[in-house]
């Protein structure tokens, strides 16, 4: 911060501002890797591959976005992977077995997802159950419920509205990707431009201080769990539309990918810090690396090692940054 006021004119304003942007690392990593993969393989930057990547991005990105809200309050949501499976199956079941129209089935699915979020929120705020434990319970039970509903077999025969959702393109961009972009904009507006959004940061930064300054902390926390579960519900519906079946085994381990994307994007696991732009690019980075390695025929085992290393680099730079910030603190009397 002091650098901005201390040396004006030594560099152009936009350059100093860019250097002070915390997300600059992840954004440049995306740019560099994208160029590198495009040079290494002709098919990487092809329209069809970009569209596939867009579909992947919608899945991980929307989950990461939702989880970020919870992490901003200092909590964690481990349930989103299983919630994807449950909502994917549920939407197919409502559509196929219960015979509801696709819009009604989707709406009902999202409603149920939101309800799960409310339950998470109540457990965390009213009963004081740690978020890790609360959502771990759902991680197990939601997966079980998905398997129980389907008896382990995919539900096929979903109506064409579902499949259209995946197949339709807006100016070459797949609908799920458009939904992701719209959600990013909404999340940005909510967090940066509404008082409730700022209050969520405050709750994560210092819950007692937030409470004593008149913020209804319990409501804010509950809201973030609802947002996270709703995002998982949206992803569940998109998965069913992509696979055109309700698949109970889908989404396994995705909660960790989502959390990783959020952390790589600069959302602090201790709460109160991080921005939407970072989360979006965190998710893009993961998708770019995944797809790039597949296209270059790197073994899936090595892909996981690479992802682990990316996460390690992200966490290390975060620590170094905050350490450096701490050192540059000079008290002013």
């Amino acid at each position, binding site marked *: 911060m002091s650098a901005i006021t201390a040396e004006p004119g030594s560099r152009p304003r936009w350059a100093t501002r860019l250097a002070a942007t915390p997300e600059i690392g992840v954004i440049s990593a995306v740019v560099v890797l994208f160029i590198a993969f495009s040079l290494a393989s002709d098919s990487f930057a092809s329209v069809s591959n970009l569209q596939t990547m867009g579909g992947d991005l919608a899945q991980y990105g929307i989950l990461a976005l939702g989880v970020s809200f919870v992490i901003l309050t200092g909590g964690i949501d481990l349930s989103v992977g299983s919630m994807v499976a449950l909502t994917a199956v549920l939407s197919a079941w409502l559509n196929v077995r219960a015979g509801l129209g696709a819009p009604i089935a989707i709406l009902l699915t999202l409603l149920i997802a939101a309800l799960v979020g409310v339950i998470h929120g109540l457990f965390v705020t009213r009963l004081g159950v740690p978020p890790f434990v609360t959502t771990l319970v759902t991680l197990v039970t939601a997966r079980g419920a998905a398997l129980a509903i389907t008896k382990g077999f995919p539900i096929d025969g979903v109506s064409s509205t579902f499949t259209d959702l995946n197949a339709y393109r807006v100016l070459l961009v797949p609908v799920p990707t458009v939904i992701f972009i719209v959600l990013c904009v909404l999340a940005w507006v909510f967090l940066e431009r*509404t008082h409730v959004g700022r209050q969520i940061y405050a709750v994560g930064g*210092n819950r007692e201080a937030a*409470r*004593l*300054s*008149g913020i209804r902390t319990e409501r804010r926390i509950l809201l973030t769990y609802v947002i996270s579960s709703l995002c998982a519900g949206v992803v569940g519906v998109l998965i069913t539309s992509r696979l055109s079946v309700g698949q109970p085994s889908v989404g396994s381990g995705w909660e960790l990918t989502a959390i990783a994307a959020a952390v790589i994007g600069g959302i602090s696991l201790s709460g109160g810090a991080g921005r939407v732009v970072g989360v979006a690019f965190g998710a893009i980075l993961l998708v770019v690396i995944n797809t790039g390695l597949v296209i270059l025929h790197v073994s899936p085992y090595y892909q996981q090692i690479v992802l682990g290393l990316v996460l390690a680099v992200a966490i290390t730079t975060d620590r170094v940054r905050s350490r450096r910030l701490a050192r540059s603190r000079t*008290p002013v*009397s």
Partner: protein
Amino acid sequence: MTGVRLTGLRKSYGPTTVLAVDELELRGGQIVALVGENGAGKSTLTGILSGIVTADEGIVEIAGSTLRAGDPRHAQQLGVSLVSQEFPLVGQLPVAENLLLGLRPAGTSRLFVNRGATRRAATALLDRLGVVIEPDRLVETLTVPQQQLIEIAKALGREPSVLVLDEPTSALGPVESAAVLGAARDLAERGAVVVFIGHRLDEVREIADRVVVLRNGRLVADLTPAEATEQRLVRAMVGAELSDLVGQPTAGGGDRIAFRATGLAARGLGPVDLTVQDGEILGIAGLMGSGRSRLLHTIMGATTRTAGTMTLGGEPYAPRSPADAVAAGVGLVPEDRKHQALLLDAPVRWNVSLAALRGLARPFLSPALELAFATEVAESANVTCQSIEQAVRGLSGGNQQKSVFGRWFAVKPRLLLLDEPTRGVDIGAKAGIYRLIEAAAADGMTVVVVSSELEELMQLTHRIAVMSRGHLVRTIDRDQFSKESIMTAATSGAVPRPAPGPTGGVEGAVR
């Protein structure tokens, strides 16, 4: 007899020299008070002495051996013990184990923990301070002052030859402070060097054998207690007269009743009857654990009210949460600004606009509008910062506290509750905060201020209500203010008596 000799110490951060002391010798058996404004170099000096801070140049000799610069473990081996304002206690361990952390009671097994012996040793340590705290309680369940007492007892238990106390009494009431100072005196009489950083000048004069004043990292005065008059100390520290700094009596409060509590009770509090007039500054005095903070928190809706009614501006007022209180026009500056008030890593802008955000949103927040608003608020509260976007953590204690005041000035509450508003801020900032309080009252706010510093209350307030064991025992008007009358009232109720109301949660009171 130990002695400490500091020669040619230099420490800079970037271009700023924070410490430049050519020579300072501390003799065993003496209590040396180190005074100066925040940023004067006191903490740097004691940091170097205890090995936490590495000096750029200079030598520290403790009892003849040279301290390896920046080696806290070596400093400990040489007998240096530091009690800082942050308490490095393990919250989830009981009091007894915290006190003996890393030590083993004499004559117990190397392999197994002897709980009985640990508890006995802990009780003995607490007795030295005359503190009654159940040794089996978890430290995280204790109040800040109690934790501070534990931290001090822990340091004393190390039998240090050099004890550094960084504002040991800032969180404590008068009686607890006296006990701590007494223990420091005992230690000095047994030949140890005691270095004492303090902001309360009366306390400094009372306890110290020698007063060393730092300003801008330099030694500016080295006085005997007799020489160290309040005026002289203040002049040495800031180069100003005391009368410029301390608030003057303001015009009396109005006659309309702004706030009234009838039979107000909560766990460990009350029933309390209290009325405050419009524009009045009401002080609340009492020992630690007497329920002062609890009273404020109950009015704020932060502690569950179990009985009683309140009115605010003549209308019924029954907050169920601080959010209700803020909506009704009540604000609280809490005791512990780091844990209860500030978003430390967020910019000053966020911190001052926090309570006013809803009003700023129309319906969306505009960055330009918020920036202008926050800048104006920070200026109205005289917050000095490099930039409004600077993290509030980097501000001095006084400016942090002014930011919290700014947060409430921004919403203009009818009733402003202040809990130890000048705790741990330097003398210049104290004066600034007094002015803010007076400005708030002049602006029509009704102010209730809790403080352990009697002089502060006597200077600032129109009326002082004294609390003891959760009850309001006496209200004293300005023309009858005296330290004796307040202390008598505060201690009178501390003797056990058949309590008419619930009186839990008063552990930690001093015997």
